[in-house]
């Protein structure tokens, strides 16, 4: 093999990663607590990366750094191996963006917007915009300002896809959309993924939608990236355990039997104990179920939404007292 495996590995990672954040740190003004605490992560080519977090967790700051709209306090974001901040103008030709609140001159219609954007991009497929708008049943001749929120999101997606981007950044694109508009949005995204294998980075509160679409999941909590892994391994290691416990009466003793697990949450219920564990394994569960005092143990899978709530659910004590 290579004489210097470390260099080789990082070089090949860099070429495979469409997004690479290295030791990213964002701090605003005199705030002693950073908005994003130093972390690194990457988005492999062709994958769909979902960034989750409660409001105020730092998602927007991260998206701004990624799009080169903001210079991180320390560290860097690279897109296609180039610095997002310094090479922004050049990189943005390869990136399609659907912002959380799509903004455009309110008097311009979707066709006018498409014609306008066509002059800014080296390749622009205006016909595809028209076809998408027709599929979405969004009128191309209504001023942007008179469209509904859902229609604006769909116009924004149509425009974002028209330049055949290599990376699509979607900032909570389905927030506030009704079920029909949301389905149309995800439908179009499925088509795009099937046709071009575009790399997607999205933030979303629609965890059921994300669960069907994402390969990798990142969870931001208080500026820390507490989860960054494939959806498959995330779902494999989280389980809800329910069991009867002879020691339930003894408050000091309950939960002792869980010592083999990382219990994220433990609740005493009328019938026994319910715990969410983050390092489930079939073998450790079998040993756990056989422990003396553990009765009728069962393990059930968690949806992404339940995992998310278990990971970020409790407000950190430090946040109390602050607005």
């Amino acid at each position, binding site marked *: 093999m290579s004489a210097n495996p470390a260099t080789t590995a990082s070089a090949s990672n860099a070429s495979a990663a469409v997004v690479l954040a290295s030791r990213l740190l964002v701090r605003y003004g005199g705030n002693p607590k950073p908005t994003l605490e130093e972390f690194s992560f990457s988005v492999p080519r062709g994958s769909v990366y979902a960034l989750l977090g409660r409001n105020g967790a730092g998602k927007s700051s991260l998206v701004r750094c990624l799009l080169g709209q903001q210079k991180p306090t320390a560290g860097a974001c690279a897109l296609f191996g180039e610095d997002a901040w310094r090479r922004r103008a050049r990189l943005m030709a390869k990136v399609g963006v659907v912002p959380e609140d799509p903004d455009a001159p309110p008097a311009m219609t979707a066709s006018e917007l498409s014609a306008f954007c066509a002059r800014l991009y080296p390749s622009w497929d205006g016909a595809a915009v028209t076809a998408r708008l027709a599929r979405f049943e969004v009128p191309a001749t209504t001023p942007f300002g008179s469209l509904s929120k859902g229609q604006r999101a769909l116009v924004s997606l149509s425009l974002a896809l028209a330049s055949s981007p290599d990376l699509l950044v979607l900032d909570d694109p389905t927030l506030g959309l009704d079920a029909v508009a949301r389905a149309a949005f995800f439908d179009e995204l*499925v088509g795009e993924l099937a046709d071009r294998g575009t790399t997607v980075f999205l933030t979303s509160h629609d965890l059921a939608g994300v669960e069907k679409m994402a390969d990798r999941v990142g969870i931001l909590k208080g500026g820390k990236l507490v989860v960054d892994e494939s959806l498959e391994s995330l779902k494999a290691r989280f389980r809800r355990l329910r069991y009867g416990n002879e020691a339930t009466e003894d408050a000091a003793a309950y939960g002792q039997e869980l010592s083999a697990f990382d219990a994220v949450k433990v609740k005493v219920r009328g019938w026994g104990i319910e715990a969410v564990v983050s390092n489930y394994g079939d073998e450790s569960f079998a040993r756990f179920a056989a422990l003396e005092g553990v009765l009728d143990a069962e393990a059930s899978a968690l949806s992404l939404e339940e995992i998310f709530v278990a990971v970020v659910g409790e407000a950190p004590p430090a946040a109390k007292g602050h607005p």
Partner: protein
Amino acid sequence: MIGRGLSVDPSDAIPLWKQIEENVRRLVASGALRPRSAMPSVRDLARDLSINPATVAKGYQRLVDAGILAVKRGEGTFVAEKPPALPRGEREKELEGGATRYASLAVTLGVSNEVAVERVKGSLGLLRKKRNEDS
């Protein structure tokens, strides 16, 4: 048609590609999917289930590798003419895994051993009968 038998549950612990793989295996085993019948395209199935096409592709690829599906260039994906039996070791493993899952379900539901075994016999009978009728 095929889409109806091929549902997936994103909240299940089993990865979506694996659910697709198991569903297709089941449909082929039951005869609901006949040899040489056309599978929906990756794109159509992804759209029907609104899941990432890469997930569908991964499930299909595993089935192609296992010889259950076959790709005809330019035509699409089909159920293989003769879906092969699994190698003995694999078969044992699959069988044991399936049996454990079913047994856990029976125990969780509080069903007696007799009832659980009867149900398996019933299902086996139905599947084999359906297969014989079809062929």
